[in-house]
Every structure is written in structure tokens, then in C-alpha cells.
């Protein structure tokens, strides 16, 4: 079945491969993301996971929430571990020792494991062209160790290592454009996704598995603890991020950018685009921006989001 033909009805019937009973927080975006990703698998699958929230909370020995073969090696090496899995499977198949026609390999990494410490391993694996799907669940800080800033933390977000202080208003640096960097690796498939749009997410996962060679899906995973919002609003945050164009939905197959879902609708009808303030004001990590002296920082964020959105429209040949 190709990615385009997946339906929610069919997917809802599919047994969850990430079982309930794991110890991720209530309202955890990563849990929803992992569950949806695993719903979109198409056959025998092996999962490798970087150190992080998803790993520690789903496999507390002697328990595990994974109904697929699963391995965790270290923080910075999930892409190289997955490379070895893929190469091993390839060699075993060539030697006639593999009982499956094909096994999909999925690597999960958080933003720390992807933007920062594991960046080299991903770049290497993608350059070598391993047939793996890398899923970045991006909760925009080192949540597992207690909300420290990462290369994926957005500008002016307050974290425990980029706190909003009297002089410095949170993280001063921009969020690294990780997915575009992955497109620049000239891999067959790169996409962004949000758990607020599950069908779009699962179709992209399926497409990522279908293409031959590396695929990278960047999925926003709102974190109630780290972003400081009530756990019931996880999906709402994931939706607002898309509606404000803070986190647009797109895919790039063989380097060709295309907007998907709501982001495509916003491109057609720019009036649908919500101001970033609606997204920022709902989160405690941006609370310090809503004081009279910091108001201009919200305007600055809006400007950055607008510029990036316009750049994306150009890449999609929509402007």
C-alpha cells in the first residue's frame, strides 16, 4: 500500500506496536508521535532508539512497551546503529540467511540526539545512503534531563540552560533548520509532520519507508513539562504550530519541496495564517515575552516566521 492510500479507518484497526503502560508523561507528544509512526509501518520492522525520553520511559527493565524488535545503544549513535542493522540485514539476505523479504529499519531520536550530539552520525549515515527511516521527535529541548536548550530550541524560549533572566530573554539563537540540512544531503525523502494531523503524519512515515535510501521525518512533539502548558493541550499546541506557520507541513521528495495539508491551504489562502502570538502566549516558556519591555521580541519572532514561510513558499514554487 502506498503512502497516499492509508486511511484512518484501516489504521485505527491496526494493533499498536508501542503498547500502553509505558511511563511517558501524561500529554507527552513523543508518545503520540511514536505510536502514530508505528501505526504506519508496513511489515517486519526493527526499531533503534537514541537515549532520551522515549527510550528511558518505554523500556524500564524488565518491562518494555515495544512489540517490535528494539535496540538502544547510546545517545549520539542511533543513526550509525541503524546503519549497522540495515547493513547486517542486507548481508544476511545476500547470504540467504534472512527469513524475510524485507525488514524496515526505523531510528528514533529526539532533538538532542539529532540536532546536536548525534548530528555527525546522521550525516554520515545519510551520505552513505542506508535505507533507513530516521524519525526526529522534536520537543525542542533536552527534556529527559530537565529542559536544557538544544539546537532545536526556538529563539527566546526559556529553558534551564537558556533561562529568561533580567538581562537575557531566553535562548538568543535561532532553531537550526535541521530538515533543510537533511534535504541538502540529497536523500530521497524529507518531511515535517505534526501529531495534530495524524493522517498526514502516517502517510509521510509510510512514504519514508517506501523510498529506497534514507528518509528523514521531523515531527513536532509538544512537551507539557518543558513548554509549560496543561497536558490536555498537546494536540492544540501541535496544531497551532502549524496554523501559525511556526512549524509548516511539507515534504521534499528527491529535493522537490511540496507543502502538505493545512500548510498548503494556508499558502492558497494566507488569511488562514494565525499570528505567532496565539501559539507563544499559550506556553510558559515564552511567558517573559509578554511584558511591555519584551513585546518587540514577539514582533521579531513573527518577522522570522514570516521570512522562513516566504522562503518555503519559494522552495515550493508558490511565490
Amino acid at each position, binding site marked *: 500500500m502506498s503512502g497516499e492510500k492509508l486511511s484512518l479507518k484501516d489504521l485505527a484497526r491496526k494493533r499498536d506496536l508501542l503498547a500502553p503502560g509505558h511511563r511517558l508523561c501524561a500529554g507527552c507528544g513523543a508518545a503520540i508521535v511514536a505510536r502514530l509512526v508505528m501505526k504506519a509501518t508496513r511489515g*517486519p*520492522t*526493527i526499531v*533503534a532508539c537514541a537515549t532520551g525520553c522515549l*527510550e*528511558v520511559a518505554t*523500556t*524500564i*527493565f*524488565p*518491562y*518494555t512497551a*515495544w*512489540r*517490535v*524488535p*528494539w*535496540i*538502544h*545503544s*547510546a545517545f*549520539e*549513535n542511533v*543513526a*550509525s*546503529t*541503524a*546503519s*549497522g*542493522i*540495515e*547493513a*547486517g*540485514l*542486507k*548481508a*544476511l539476505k*545476500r*547470504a540467504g*540467511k534472512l*527469513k*524475510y523479504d524485507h*525488514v524496515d529499519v526505523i531510528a528514533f531520536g529526539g532533538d538532542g540526539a539529532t540536532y546536536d550530539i548525534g548530528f*555527525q*552520525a546522521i*550525516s*554520515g*549515515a545519510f*551520505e*552513505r545512503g542506508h535505507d533507513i527511516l530516521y524519525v526526529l521527535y522534536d520537543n525542542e529541548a533536552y527534556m529527559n534531563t530537565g529542559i536544557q536548550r538544544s539546537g532545536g530550541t526556538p529563539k527566546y524560549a526559556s529553558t534551564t540552560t537558556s533561562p529568561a533572566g533580567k538581562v537575557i530573554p531566553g535562548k538568543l539563537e535561532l532553531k537550526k533548520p535541521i530538515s533543510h540540512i537533511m534535504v541538502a544531503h540529497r536523500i530521497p525523502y524529507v518531511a515535517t509532520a505534526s501529531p495534530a494531523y495524524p493522517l498526514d503524519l502516517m502517510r509521510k512515515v509510510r512514504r519514508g519507508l517506501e523510498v529506497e535510501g534514507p528518509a528523514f521525518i521531523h515531527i513536532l512533539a509538544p512537551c507539557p513539562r518543558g513548554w509549560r502548558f496543561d497536558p490536555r493541550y498537546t494536540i492544540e499546541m501541535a496544531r497551532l504550530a502549524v496554523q501559525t506557520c511556526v512549524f509548516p507541513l511539507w515534504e521534499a521528495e528527491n529535493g522537490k519541496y511540496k507543502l502538505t495539508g493545512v500548510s498548503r491551504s494556508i499558502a492558497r489562502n494566507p488569511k488562514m495564517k494565525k499570528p505567532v502570538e496565539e501559539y507563544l502566549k499559550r506556553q510558559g516558556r515564552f511567558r517573559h515575552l509578554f511584558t511591555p519591555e519584551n513585546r518587540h521580541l514577539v514582533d521579531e519572532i513573527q518577522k522570522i516566521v514570516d521570512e522562513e514561510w516566504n522562503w518555503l513558499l519559494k522552495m515550493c514554487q508558490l511565490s
Partner: protein
Amino acid sequence: MGVRGKVLGLTGDEAVAYAIKQVEPDVVAAYPITPQTIIVERISEYVANGEIKTEYIAVESEHSAMSACIGAAAVGARAFTATASAGLAFMWETLYIAASCRLPIVMAIVNRALSAPINIHCDHSDSMGARDSGWIQIYCENSQEAYDAAIQAWKIAEHPDVLLPVMFCLDGFVLSHTLENVHTLPDEDVKEFIGERKFVKVRSHEGREVPFVLDPENPITIGPLDLYDFYFEHKRQQVEAMKNAKKVIVDVGREYGKISGREYGLLEPYKLESAEVAIVGLGSTMGTAKVVVDKLREKGRKVGLLKIRAFRPFPYEEVIKELEHVEVIGVLDRSLSFGAQGGPLFLEIRSAFYDFERRPLISNYVYGLGGRDMPPDLIMQIFDDLEKIKEKGRVDVLLKFIGLRE
């Protein structure tokens, strides 16, 4: 007994690559580093020429080399890598993971000094730094031993009583880049000796007995979060596996002797009968030391040598058995343990004799750091020193540096 095979002129690195070609592992993931480069170059050539079906992963770092080996071994493939010096240091984290996930990976270490200052020549600081990582360590005296270890390692690592990764070490340049005659086995003899990789059964979280491998039909979780309630027990199992490895190394070495005419054990005594003073050491210097022992024996001096082949697991009982009659022991270390009483081998040997009724005098000689040469006359000096200690009846200076400008 009819041993088949060819004699080839090979450098140590080439001997390793040739053995690995005959083993034909499923995956080789490696990153080039002097003086290991010839190994990965040769293996790449074998792959490029279709001589082996191995999947060669030209990783972007040693950290990824070991990580890829971990992934490959976990999925049931045979995985090999080779490194040296900084490369091994960069792997440090994943060494522990490979061993603790009980993955029978095999790695060649071409011993080289660690930075700083940067130095490409031989000493044992790299592999000695990894001695507590849970890997089996075998040290080779010459290219022949490196070739033989590259074959035996798989059988040791994959033994169900062991399931630990094996690193075998050969001295950089001294062996890696020096041409020697190497007796090789026919390809089919190597393949038959190694056999197919087998998997132990474990109880999965779904309550079934399943093979210990990542298999979609029989899902298991490898490398979970393991806290104070179970971590300790898992470490205890590794202790047991390492203990078991002693017997397995000997068994595999004996079995290998049957097909090659070259039998191996945990250590190799040389002219220790009636020896009053003896040298203990490992690696290529033991070859030179044997020549020195021969010369001194000719002159009627009662000297001998004990070569340690397996440093992990360390053969305590066997060491005592071989050296129990020796009055003075000189331990040769080609690495330092800064702040300790002596080098790593010295500490092991001295500790081994603690419970022994008659404790010999033991002195430590650190030599050859950063590739400093260890010619026969320096070894001769050590024997002279050991005999002086014997006459005096005491060790005045515990740690001496050999061939050093003071």
C-alpha cells in the same frame, strides 16, 4: 598430521585482513587510522573485487564503526572492525555497550600510543585503557599469531558460555607494517572451523523462548533502561562470562591446533624450567626477549620468559603455576597507569601472587612508549638487573624506565 594451506609473505595488517577475508564476516564497519589502515584498505579491495560478500560500511568515525557493529551483531550478522589509538579512545563508550549487550563483535587493535603529544608508533596505552570494558583481550607476538587470533576470536566470542566481544592486539608498525612469513589455512578450513553463528535462547517479554537476536517474529528489547534493581545482576553475569572465557580460549586454541598445527592457550611459557629469574610481558617484544633468553641460556644463565596472551580474562592461576619456582620476576609494561604502583600488567602479576605462599620478588620495567625501540641489549640489561635483585634479595626500585633519557 597433514596441515594444508599456503605460506604467504604478509605484514601483520595484511595477515589480519587475509584472515578476515577467509572468515568473510557479514559486516565490516571501520574508519581508517594509522597504523591500522592496511587492514581496512585490503578488506575494501576484497569487497571491491567481489572476493567476499561482506557489507563494508565506510563509517564517518570510530564511534560509528562500533555503533554499526553493535547494530549488525544485534540483528544476527557477524561484525568486524579494526582501529588503533585515538580511534579506540573515541569508541570507549560503545566498547562497554557492545560488551554489556553481549554482542560477539571481533576487533583488531593495532597498538599505538595515545595523544598528546600525537605519536603514531607502538605502545599499549590504547588497549590497556580498554581493559575494563568487558572485552576479551588477546595480545599477539607476531603476524602469525595475529592471523590465527583473527580466526579463533569468532569462536571464542560466539561461544554460548561467553558471548563477549574480542579484541586482539598487534603492535603498530613493528608487526602491522613488517613483512613476515605467515602460514595460512585453506579458505574452507577457516569457514568450517568458524561454522555458522548460533544464538542462545532468552525469555522474551512476551513470555516465549526466543533467540537472542533482533527478529521481527520474536521481538525482544536490547539495551533497555536498567536501574538499581537489575543492573548489578547483569554486571555479575558479565563477570561469569569472562570467567568462562578462560576455558573457552584454551579449548578453541587446542581445536585450532588440530587444523593448523599451532596450538594456543592463555599464556606461553618459554624456557621457564629451572629458571631463577624470568620476564613477563606481552606483544611483539616477547619475540625479541625469546632470542635474549636463548643467548643467556647458552651462557648457562637460568633465565626464562612468560608471554601473556590473554590479558582479559587474566590467567591468575596459570601465571602462578608457570612461575611458582621463579625467584625474581621482571614485568614488562608498554603502557603506564599514572599514579599507580606500576603498569597494568605489573599490577595483575603482583596481585596474582598475593595469596601465594612463597612470594617472588617482582620488579616493573616500563619500556617502548611512543614506539621507543626495545633492542636485545636493553632486555639483556633487565635480566642483569633481575639477577642483581636476586643476589640482594630485595627490590630497591619498584618501577624502572627502560631505554629512557633521564
